[in-house]
């Protein structure tokens, strides 16, 4: 975005990642060929609806789910086949913040103990005193009073608990922090606090984020680059302003048009692209383009060819045979897709 220099070296890189889960109903293709790079010092936003595979992609970066195919590289090392023992080192390099801080913190541990745990696991403090100092420092960083170290998670508000989750993630000085829906369960007034905190910490400490969320406005605000996922694939990526103003993939355009705007006259009169039906099952995704069954601009070719990401502008890629053109057609003549 503005005034931030982003070096081009990749902190993490996924190449042709696939994650499949066998279920009684068939094999779920949660992630089905995703390649992405997270560069040092940037925030890459990963946005999509439920079932898009965005969270699974984040988990695969930490090897918290096993890739079925493809490779995971962190700090230049291929970690795809690392043993359980070596993974401990990976999990110092890549930290994670979850949606529900209530569920990710041990209710029996004090806040201080929770934050100190990664310090102990990764042997980052020489003594008890050093550990206490570091916990105090981490509490300062995330804007919590030091005396909260003695409290238990249930004594904290949702926003405070999420700050603890962030302090824990910072403890090992990771190369990358995967933020999986970090604001989704917070009250609106608290969401803004957490977003400001995350951006402030990034400026101060030079952190790298993978910001995963379904909230497009939040992703736009937080990210230097955005990747939009649908049914296990990235369908579009680019700079947030680019994606926001000139989406090239019909799904991105539909998603953007569905985001409600808090301005009554605008919201009432907006041209909306209402998609028909639901996301198809990831067990049996449509042939050709996966979005074609819901795309208001689907054409016969779309059933034949599975489109790949192609560059359509500087740093802007879309996986659509009619990228750009289809969106212009949708906007010129808003197709309110027939009721399902």
């Amino acid at each position, binding site marked *: 975005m*503005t005034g931030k220099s982003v070096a081009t070296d990749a902190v993490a890189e996924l190449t042709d990642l696939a994650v499949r889960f066998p279920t009684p109903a068939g094999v779920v293709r949660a992630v089905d060929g995703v390649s992405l790079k997270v560069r040092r010092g940037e925030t890459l936003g990963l946005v999509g*609806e*439920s079932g898009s595979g965005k969270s699974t992609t984040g988990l695969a970066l930490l090897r918290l789910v096993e890739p079925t195919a493809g490779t995971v590289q962190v700090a230049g090392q291929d970690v795809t086949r690392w043993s359980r023992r070596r993974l401990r080192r990976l999990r110092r390099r890549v930290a994670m913040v979850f949606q529900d801080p209530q569920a990710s913190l041990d209710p029996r541990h004090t806040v201080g103990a929770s934050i100190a745990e990664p310090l102990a696991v990764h042997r980052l403090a020489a003594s008890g005193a050093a550990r206490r100092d570091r916990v105090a420092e981490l509490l300062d960083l995330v804007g919590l009073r030091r005396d909260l170290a003695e409290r238990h998670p249930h004594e904290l*508000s*949702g*926003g*405070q608990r999420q700050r603890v989750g962030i302090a824990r993630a910072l403890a090992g000085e990771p190369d990358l922090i995967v933020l999986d829906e970090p604001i989704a369960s917070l*009250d*609106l*007034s*608290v*969401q*803004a*606090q957490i*977003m*400001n905190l995350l*951006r402030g910490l990034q400026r101060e400490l030079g952190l790298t984020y993978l910001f995963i969320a*379904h909230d*497009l*406005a*939040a992703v*736009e*605000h*937080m990210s230097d680059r955005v990747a939009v996922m649908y049914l296990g694939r990235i369908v579009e990526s680019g700079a*947030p*302003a680019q994606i*926001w103003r000139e989406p090239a993939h019909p799904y991105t355009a*539909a*998603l953007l*048009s*569905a*985001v*409600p*705007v*808090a*301005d*009554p*006259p*605008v*919201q*009432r009169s907006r041209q*909306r692209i*209402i*998609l028909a*039906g*639901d*996301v198809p099952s990831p067990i049996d995704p449509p042939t050709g383009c996966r979005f074609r069954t819901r795309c208001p601009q689907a054409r016969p070719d779309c059933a034949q060819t599975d489109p790949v990401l192609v560059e359509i502008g500087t740093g802007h890629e879309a996986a659509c045979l009619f990228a750009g053109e289809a969106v212009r057609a949708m906007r010129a003549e808003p197709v309110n897709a027939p*009721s*399902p």
Partner: protein
Amino acid sequence: MTDEAVLSVADLTVTIGTRRGAARAVAGVDWSVRAGQTLALVGESGSGKSMSVLAATGLAPRAARVTGDVRLLGTDLATLSAARRRRMRGRHVGFVFQDPMTSLNPVLTVGRQIGEASEAHLGLTRRAARARAIEMLELVGIPSAAERVDAYPHQLSGGMRQRAVIAMALVCEPDLLIADEPTTALDVTTQAQIVELVADLQRRLGTAVVWISHDLGVVAGLADTVAVMYGGRIVEQGAVDAVFAEPAHPYTAALLAARPDPDANVTELVTIPGTPPSPLELPEGCAFWPRCSVRGDSRCERELPPLVPVAAGHQVRTFYPRQPTGEDR
């Protein structure tokens, strides 16, 4: 009929006894909604928005003490026996909650569940009720309704389940629909479908709607009037356009500014310090003062500001209403 409130609530107060003391969940709330109109109740967790509606419709938890005047279609609900109140609610009020599975019975087909209400309240035969259920499923946009009528809830997607719940809520053509965060658990594209669906059904059936939400964008698109709640009270109320364009309460203004706006390139979002208060620990005076940016003097800490008009049909509860600027957003 159009001028008369379908549901009106006056001086509604809900106190809930808990192990940690009495929680004043709702305190002296007044609102009403007319046929064909949508009232949106907005607020954060613990603001009392859901509790006020549950209490008004007789669905408050047992531990709650509810006082105040509630009229459904002009009838004072307090004068009715519990059985008659339940019957009246079943016939005239439909409910849609955030999680469709709280409304659906997992071991009955959706057709049976939709049909049941029309058997009970409209006196339809089982066969007629089934036909009516299919009709309702079509109305809410469920494809192959004649087959889906025999589906169990788990066989439907989240969006389809919520549609089925809406079909169930509207099968008796109620005068009032209560929608409590009905799209919060859904994806945005599905949310857009459901909002459109309810608006369309409302136009066709003339239903009054009370829509409870924390999402200001959704509210902007569907509400006629809006009541912003904080700490169990209404802090601002009025026509949705007026409240959003010229919020008079510092809380409303801050909430509207806290959302990232992709069209404005800001680095730092406007924040409200702290968190919404628990109903167990409400501050004296104005409940918002500990978080308020314009708190002027100690009066806010001692005295509860009254709800006063700032313009026709626009009321606010603060000693320091924001001055309209004409273009303030």
